[in-house]
């Protein structure tokens, strides 16, 4: 039983790390600030949650599991807010989305700055 739980926990940890890697790749590859924040948030929420869940399963029913639950709770409390504040600040300082329904940048401007996040 314990071995089974440890195994499931290990799979969760590996899945969480994989999600974090995907998030990191997205952070590097996505074109503008907002999509990059989206990618980074996957690392914060999905990746960290899965890793913590896996560690909880490995630790079993103990004080350690409770502490991990507190860690998860505080991550859930802070990282979405941080992502929101980051997007807010990016919007406030004039970064415009480059893709999607809300794209504001005109095509001639896009041609001028073909790469990077420096929006006019």
């Amino acid at each position, binding site marked *: 039983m314990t071995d089974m739980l440890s195994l499931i926990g290990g799979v969760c940890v590996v899945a969480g790390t994989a999600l974090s890697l995907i998030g990191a790749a997205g952070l590097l590859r996505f074109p503008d600030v907002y999509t990059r924040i989206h990618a980074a948030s996957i690392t914060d929420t999905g990746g960290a949650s899965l890793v913590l869940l896996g560690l909880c399963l490995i630790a079993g029913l103990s004080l350690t599991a409770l502490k991990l639950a507190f860690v998860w709770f*505080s991550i859930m*409390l*802070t990282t979405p*807010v941080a992502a*929101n*504040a980051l997007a*807010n600040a990016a919007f*406030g300082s004039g970064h415009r989305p480059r893709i999607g329904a809300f794209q504001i940048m005109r095509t001639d401007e896009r041609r001028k700055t073909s790469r990077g996040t420096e929006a006019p």
Partner: protein
Amino acid sequence: MIALPSSLNANLVIGIALLVMLLVVAGAIVRTRSLLAAIILFSIYSLVSAVWLVVMDAADVAFTEAVIGAGVSTIVLLGAILLTRGEVEKPGWRALVAPALVCAGVGGLLIYAAAGLPALGDPASPANAHVGRAYLEAAPKEIGAPNIVTAVLASYRGFDTLGETAVIFAAGIGVALMLGFGPHASPLPPAATIGDHHVVLRVSAKFLIPLIALFALYVQFHGDLGAGGGFQAGVIMAAAIILHALVFGLRDTMMAVPPRLVRSIAALGVLLYAGVGVACMLNGGAFLDYDYLFPPAFEKQVPGWLLGDPEHAHHWGQHFGILLIELGVLLTVAATMLTIFYGFAGRTVEAIRQERGA
């Protein structure tokens, strides 16, 4: 000598990977021309080194590094570039040749000398075999605190820690003398804006600040059982108040925690620390010898079950001595960090006001 259990284990690999990350981040700091980028990279550098410290079993240090490096020093550096307008430097490559040669030479000598140092994790090295081991063997019997780092910090090397606390206090006073204790007049009310962009931040900060303060107290009073102590707790407490200032504005924070109060608390912490030492002297012991914190007649009255350890009744003095001086450290560190923050933030407010007036 017993061979190392295995030279290539998971810890070693993780440690080397983290060190390589540190090198990459440090290289990026050297290369970047933007001060803002350098500061954010330095914050990342601190976080990565905190993770490396955990791998090296230095839980207390990692805790401190994460709170200080990624939290307080980033805020102080950001305040400084706000006040110095964050000019971007423009060095010519000719000016870099001499420093690069000097650094390469010194670095080469250091690496050459490193071959003579004990291998990583050598249990028989002079540092680990003598002094460190002596502390590990003596502390559980003499101090009774499970966290040896706290026992050494607060009891064996208590005099040293008093000096460090005084240095922190002096640094806080130095910053305050140069930048002021905060804005002279009350800061301007925030400019009226259409719609509230920061409503998410405000609501969650209202929830987070008491949680952070509570965590600081946990770190403080759990410090002799697990990782933690006055230094970490003080910085976390200051971070809670700085978060309040960042989200709700300096004006509200200075009304809740006035600079005058912060100043007195910083002095009170050092006074409490030194006062514990003097109290030990008055009871016949040496300075900061907590075994003499309570008069022997008083100590006999304390029932042994109160500490759960009837054999070591004198741990009572050590226990409360560490608790009190850690409280002194907490007060001084938290108040000093706040004084520094008020100094930088106050200057910013003054600079903005001058700009608007001019």
